[in-house]
């Protein structure tokens, strides 16, 4: 029997849980499985978790009224799931994996109720079978038992009766003391296949008679492909086709993308890549051939010199306070660069387009339904004729919320009906044609009281995308907002989105205020968090576990930061040392309140990973442009942490019982300000730009 799209119980008592998300290694399949299985009292050993096919059945209410779907889904949990849909519509409606939403939205509002409904149905089915009152029956380990008679039956043996029972519309959920799986660090189900090479990523797709393609984009964003001389390349071994690709229509959150590109199709990835590099191609610069990082930042700097033109948050009257006689004003401005996601798996898609108007895609996508729609649009196919096979992803971090590389593969395959084609971007193409974390400048102006605490807070920045500039601190008058100043650079969400840069701005500035006031930066924050008890508790825990205040050797220092993102509150204490002019991060201590950790070890892993992802960016990450082109090309000049660079990362969890927060992204935001503040503690140097650089004496002199 199928308890509607989410849960299937088979006659042999095996349970399959279908989830409308992808597990990119964050452990969400395990966590979502735990939530459903706990509520249904399933035997964890019998549970498997699969990604739901890219089908509307899993994305909106349509299935619930009885669509058979790809799985032979029966009619069903309309009443149970009806209330769920609006709450999870944003994420589930797109089958989107992003926004740290899997557990707190889908898990909480779909998986748990579906599991609880299934449990109620099996109890009812056993009651019917035995002619006993349901109130005398218990469920545990995928079995219903009747204690006084000793009767016992598996869920699998009950499926025929269960199929005749209407699931309850508001199943009772467990209370925390009844949990058997939630809150336990069960081993992640995706790990065994990731240690023996059997995990399949999109780039691993192999099909009979398939071809391999490589691509080269116009190096300037918005540039043109003027001419291609392919005569020599078509004679190279294994090369079969040279194709030009039109601009990909705007993808999510980056309407401006649209490179033109040339593709070589061959019988091996390496041959295709060699051939595409050997092509004689004339690219035109289009309108952006003079674009440079310096010119963009100059524009941003000018833009943010005014008060906010669009408000994110406004309370009181900052102007009145700042203009009052004798007001003490403190100002600073900060800058953050473009960043590429640089997931370890280069972008790749295999597509097969048939003459009969059907197509199949082998992808690694955070938005498989959107990929299906975009390919159908691009090729003029019906969406229901496009079948999407989603795979494990070698890192998402937001880059796979875009479908540009998927549409390209489909366009190539459409030129060769019946032949599957795998398009693989080189690392160079992946880094130079990203959807970058936007660069931004943020300017602060505050009025502080006699003790140096802010009483009015003005903050203006460019390139707005979320609410990350809000502050938790008790400042009476606030005006936070932005000026719309962007640049023609493809951009999009990068792990933690705006939270990847605003906490660097706000938490560095707060640190500057604390130091200007002569107050310990931790104590200063704590005083301003009197009315934010969850923030205060997280800050206190990070400070305690991070040995805040204990002596450190000369040249070393600690920095602290706290920030709320995706429903979770996180704080970090970083310890750094400057050795021979190099910043060395020795230790990072994180505290997080995510409401409740569903799988504590997976939460620890996510916060560790989020912190180190942020640390790579804070220490080295910078995409720069000159002549309209990205200057970086591979890991030698877009560096990432190696073992020797990576500090130990400790994670301490607060199970506050508050609404569930995400964990995939909140580990990232605090790293940059924590290490920048630690650098100040160690050296007195204030880093107002990312990546954080230690100023050498020579550099300081030449800047002066």
């Amino acid at each position: 029997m199928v308890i509607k799209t989410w849960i299937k119980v088979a006659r042999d008592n095996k349970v399959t849980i279908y989830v409308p998300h992808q597990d990119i290694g964050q452990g969400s399949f395990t966590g979502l499985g735990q939530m459903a299985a706990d509520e249904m009292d399933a035997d964890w050993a019998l549970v498997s978790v699969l990604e739901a096919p890219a089908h509307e059945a899993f994305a909106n209410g349509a299935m619930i009224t009885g669509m058979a779907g790809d799985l032979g889904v029966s009619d069903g949990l309309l009443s149970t799931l009806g209330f769920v849909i609006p709450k999870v519509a944003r994420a589930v409606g797109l089958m989107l994996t992003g926004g740290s939403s899997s557990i707190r939205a889908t898990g909480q509002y779909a998986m748990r109720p579906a599991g609880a409904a299934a449990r109620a149905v099996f109890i009812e089915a056993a009651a019917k079978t035995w002619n006993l009152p349901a109130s005398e029956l218990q469920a545990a380990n995928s079995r219903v038992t009747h204690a006084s008679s000793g009767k016992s039956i598996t869920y699998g043996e009950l499926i025929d009766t269960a199929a005749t029972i209407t699931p309850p519309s508001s199943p009772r959920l467990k209370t925390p003391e009844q949990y058997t799986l939630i809150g336990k660090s069960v081993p992640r189900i995706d790990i065994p296949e990731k240690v023996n090479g059997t995990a399949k990523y999109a780039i691993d797709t192999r099909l009979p008679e398939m071809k391999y393609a490589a691509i080269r984009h116009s190096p300037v964003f918005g540039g043109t492909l003027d001419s291609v001389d392919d005569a020599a390349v078509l004679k190279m071994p294994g090369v079969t086709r040279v194709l030009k690709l039109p601009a990909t229509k705007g993808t999510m959150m980056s309407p401006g993308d649209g490179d033109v590109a040339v593709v070589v199709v061959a019988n091996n990835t390496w041959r295709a890549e060699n051939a595409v590099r050997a092509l004689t191609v004339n690219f035109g610069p289009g309108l952006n051939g003079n674009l440079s990082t310096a010119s963009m930042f100059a524009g941003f700097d000018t833009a943010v010199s005014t008060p906010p033109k669009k408000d994110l948050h406004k309370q009181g009257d900052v102007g009145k306070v700042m203009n009052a006689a004798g007001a003490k004003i403190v100002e600073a401005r900060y800058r953050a660069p473009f960043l590429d996601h640089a997931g370890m798996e280069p972008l790749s898609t295999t597509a097969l387009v048939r003459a009969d108007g059907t197509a199949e895609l082998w992808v690694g996508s955070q938005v498989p339904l959107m990929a299906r729609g975009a390919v159908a649009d691009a090729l003029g196919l019906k969406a229901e004729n496009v079948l999407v096979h989603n795979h494990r992803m070698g890192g998402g971090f937001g880059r796979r919320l875009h479908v540009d590389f998927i549409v390209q593969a489909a366009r190539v395959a459409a030129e060769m009906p019946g032949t599957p084609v795998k398009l693989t971007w080189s690392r160079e193409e992946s880094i130079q044609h990203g959807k970058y974390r936007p660069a931004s400048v943020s300017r602060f102006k505050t009025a502080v009281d006699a003790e140096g605490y802010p009483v009015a807070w003005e903050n203006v920045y460019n390139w707005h995308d979320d609410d990350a500039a809000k502050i938790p601190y008790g400042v009476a008058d606030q005006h936070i907002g932005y000026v719309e100043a962007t640049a023609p650079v493809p951009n999009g969400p990068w792990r933690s989105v705006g939270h990847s840069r605003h906490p660097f701005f706000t938490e560095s500035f707060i640190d500057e205020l604390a130091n200007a006031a002569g107050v310990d930066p931790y104590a200063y924050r704590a005083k301003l968090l009197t009315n934010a008890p969850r923030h205060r508790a997280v800050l206190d825990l990070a400070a305690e576990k991070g040995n805040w205040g204990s002596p450190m050797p000369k040249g070393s220092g600690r920095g602290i930061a706290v920030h709320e993102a995706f429903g979770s509150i996180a704080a970090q204490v970083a310890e750094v040392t400057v050795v021979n002019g190099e910043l060395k991060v020795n230790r990072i201590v994180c505290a997080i309140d995510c409401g409740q950790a569903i799988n504590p070890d997976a939460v620890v892993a996510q916060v560790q990973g989020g912190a180190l992802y942020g640390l790579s960016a804070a220490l080295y990450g910078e995409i720069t442009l000159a002549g309209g082109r990205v200057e970086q090309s591979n890991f030698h000049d877009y560096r990432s942490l190696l073992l020797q660079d990576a500090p130990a990362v400790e994670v301490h969890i607060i199970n506050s019982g508050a609404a569930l927060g995400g964990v995939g992204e909140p580990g990232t935001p605090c790293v940059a300000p924590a290490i920048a503040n630690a650098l100040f503690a160690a050296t007195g140097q204030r880093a107002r730009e990312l990546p954080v650089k230690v100023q050498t004496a020579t550099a300081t002199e030449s800047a002066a």
Partner: protein
Amino acid sequence: MAFQLTINGRAREIDVEGDMPLLWVLRDEIGLTGTKFGCGIGACGACTVHINGEAIRSCQMPVSGVAGPITTIEGLGAGQADELHPVQKAWVAAQVPQCGYCQSGLIMAVASLLAKNPSPTDDDLKTTVTNICRCGTHDRVRAAVAALAKA
């Protein structure tokens, strides 16, 4: 031209250009996709395999230069309980992988190090295992190696 290779104990004849990197012979010509393409310039280590037990970056090794038997992630645990090498078992125990893409290369690099130096220091690990992991599994890699060094 034709090359005679021994891969995971099995003899293979491959007829390709001599400068084709071993990585692409493994992935596209033979179908052993557990060895990953990450950067193509030998910077990330995702393509690490063993030749004669020595960890090498297969994207930088032309097939004509291969002298000795090749072991890939698919063959690392051959003949062991559950077909898993002790490093693979330690990886499961420490719950190391996240996205998993770089892990084949990391495991191969660590297995080669431990074969020569069963109790590596932190410094040995740092100088030998220079793979990139974007998910940030670094702490758990160290924990898994420490557990193996004690065992």
